[in-house]
């Protein structure tokens, strides 16, 4: 196998991991605070569409990302309202959000951007080659010849770790995720933490969607997320609810996705449908392997009415 094949494989593995990592970090924020977001798939789809719509109407990829972040941030708050204030079942609301995302992006995708051959293409996020670092053999080009969102996702991992483990707020988030009542009695404002985490999760979903639509394809196609929202969810579980672990899992699943595209050039002859199954199969295997061994935040998906709101 030549160096060229390996470098191009690594580069595409990283490129395909970025949306997963961004979505998974969004889920991680929600999940550490105890909110189970099954609806990430729908959120990322909405982000992917809004990114292209924003880039098309405002004329730049950066504006597209900004627009997407605003839209999915609002979607995150709406999700928050339904599960936090209303206390509705998080799995059911997440499922509804997935249906909503699929429906609304398909309808608006067609009416705003056209479909098929005539679909609008926009200028994607330019890639940025970092001098010196990108000259490292093999990994240099794969890691440091990517677009801005990829670099942002690298930086978000240590940033998230810092927030969770070194700041007061991060401690509060983790405390709420383990036991909202205990946190509340200590004066932590549980609902506010949850809303902020939903907002962060939603905004990261928007960036994740843009990294797919503006970062890879430069257009929106129907149902383009294709299960990545769910794969991101299992990346969080596989990564044991830590930022670093989540990154590792995202790289693994992104690598599987890139491998799936390259089976043929690697000389592996199996029907293409089985290649397409590979990332999903790996997700199931990883989930089965790790589910028993890692422990989710104790208060996952628990509804909680804050003490201040209770009567008497």
């Amino acid at each position, binding site marked *: 196998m030549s160096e060229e094949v390996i470098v191009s494989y690594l580069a595409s593995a990283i490129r395909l991991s970025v949306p997963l990592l961004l979505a998974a970090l969004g889920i991680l924020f929600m999940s550490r605070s105890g909110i189970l977001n099954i609806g990430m798939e729908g959120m990322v789809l909405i982000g992917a569409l809004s990114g292209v719509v924003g880039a098309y109407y405002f004329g730049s990829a950066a504006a597209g990302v900004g627009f997407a972040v605003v839209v999915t941030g609002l979607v995150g708050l709406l999700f928050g309202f339904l599960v936090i204030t209303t206390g509705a079942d998080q799995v059911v*609301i997440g*499922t509804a959000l997935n249906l909503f995302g699929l429906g609304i992006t398909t309808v608006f995708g*067609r009416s705003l951007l056209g479909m098929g051959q005539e679909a609008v293409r926009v200028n994607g996020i330019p890639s940025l080659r970092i001098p010196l670092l990108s000259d490292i053999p093999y990994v240099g080009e794969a890691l440091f010849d990517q677009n801005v969102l990829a670099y942002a996702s690298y930086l978000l991992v240590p940033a998230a770790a810092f927030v969770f483990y070194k700041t007061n707020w991060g401690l509060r988030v983790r405390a709420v995720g383990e036991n909202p009542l205990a946190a509340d009695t200590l004066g932590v404002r549980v609902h506010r933490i949850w809303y902020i985490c939903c907002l962060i999760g939603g905004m990261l979903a928007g960036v994740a969607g843009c990294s797919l639509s503006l970062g890879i394809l430069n257009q929106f196609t129907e149902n383009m997320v294709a299960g990545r929202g769910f794969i991101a969810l299992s990346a969080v579980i596989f990564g044991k609810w830590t930022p670093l672990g989540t990154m590792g899992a995202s790289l693994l699943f992104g690598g599987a996705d890139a491998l799936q595209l390259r089976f043929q050039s690697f000389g592996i002859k199996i029907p293409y449908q089985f290649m397409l*199954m590979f990332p999903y199969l790996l997700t199931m295997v990883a989930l089965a392997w790790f*589910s028993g061994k890692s422990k989710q935040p104790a208060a996952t998906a628990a509804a909680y009415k804050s003490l201040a709101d209770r009567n008497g």
Partner: protein
Amino acid sequence: MSEARSVNEKAERWVKAVVEVLFYAGAVLVALLAGGLVMAAAGVSPLEAYRLIWDGAAGDANSVKETLVKATPLLFAGLCYTFAYRSGLFNIGAEGQIYIGAMTGTMAALYVPGLPGFAHLPLCIAAGAAGGAVWAGIAGALKIFKGASEIINTIMLNYMGIYLVSYMVTGPMKDPSGTLPQSARLPESALLAKLFDSRLHYGFVLAVALAVILYIVLNRTVWGYEIRSVGFNKQATKVMGIPVSRNMLLVMMVSGAIAGIGGYVEIAGVQNRLFQNFSPGYGYDGIAVALVGGAHPLGNIGSAILFGGLRSGANAMQRMTGTSTSLVYVIQATIIVLVVCNRYWFGGWKRRLIASLAARFGGDSRPEELRAVQAARETALNVNKGEGSR
């Protein structure tokens, strides 16, 4: 308490049922409004679109039959979700189980020759059920043995099931005499007979019968009691000596079998061949069908017909206006949110309405306060999420 209640118990039950039905009708109406807003924003006249949807769904005898044709797989999918939901499991995998059931059923239809219809068709249906049961059983087994989320696994299995069928119809099961990626035509002995000389077939009757059977199993058998108990409180159920893990696995498999039958019925009743993407997301529609049906097997019948009409109407709309049928998903999502949030948003309001109506029609002798307290207590006792339309 019972002597005070007996006077108006019957009236209260009726009032409750009527208010619930009205509430669901209201939720559907609001969701249609939301869909209309989306259409307006997408540049389509909602009135025109809804007229097309109505004509396509219920305009004449033929469109009504077409609605029932579409309602059939939706009812199977809804029952699949309902059955798992009642025992606290989330089977989001009806779509994959429909595909696998259709595949295994078609295998039995094509590769077990020479049987008469009365033996062949049941065999094929059983094969479809087995396929769906195995596919859902994988997620069930991973759940109980490995603690892996059945939600994620059933979704992953959806993608894998769809790709597996795609492989089978382009490879091993491809019609040898044709060029299209589809299986050979099913023999007559494996097909479902048509009703009233139309596209409507006996699958609809089968689905309704299955709904009734599931109602009886859930509400009138010991096993039904056990699995509802698992859904209500796993620890307590275990303490009572009911095997929780075994029941969870069984429920997943039965739930998958229901979807599997639905998959084969779609092939044997409508398509007559297995091919790629024959289901436009019936499995996902099933979630909305189940929730709007109050997670009650008989309630599913009504909501399946509603969503069947929406689907067949939306097909007509897509042909005429080019607006994607995916609009249906927006409407479904809105209905789900309204239904799921109803206890919070409308619970107190509904309780008061029921209490005052029951008093008017049932001649309740209880003082106002006692009535309210008892009603509140009853709601508090019934928070079991599966008990939506008791």
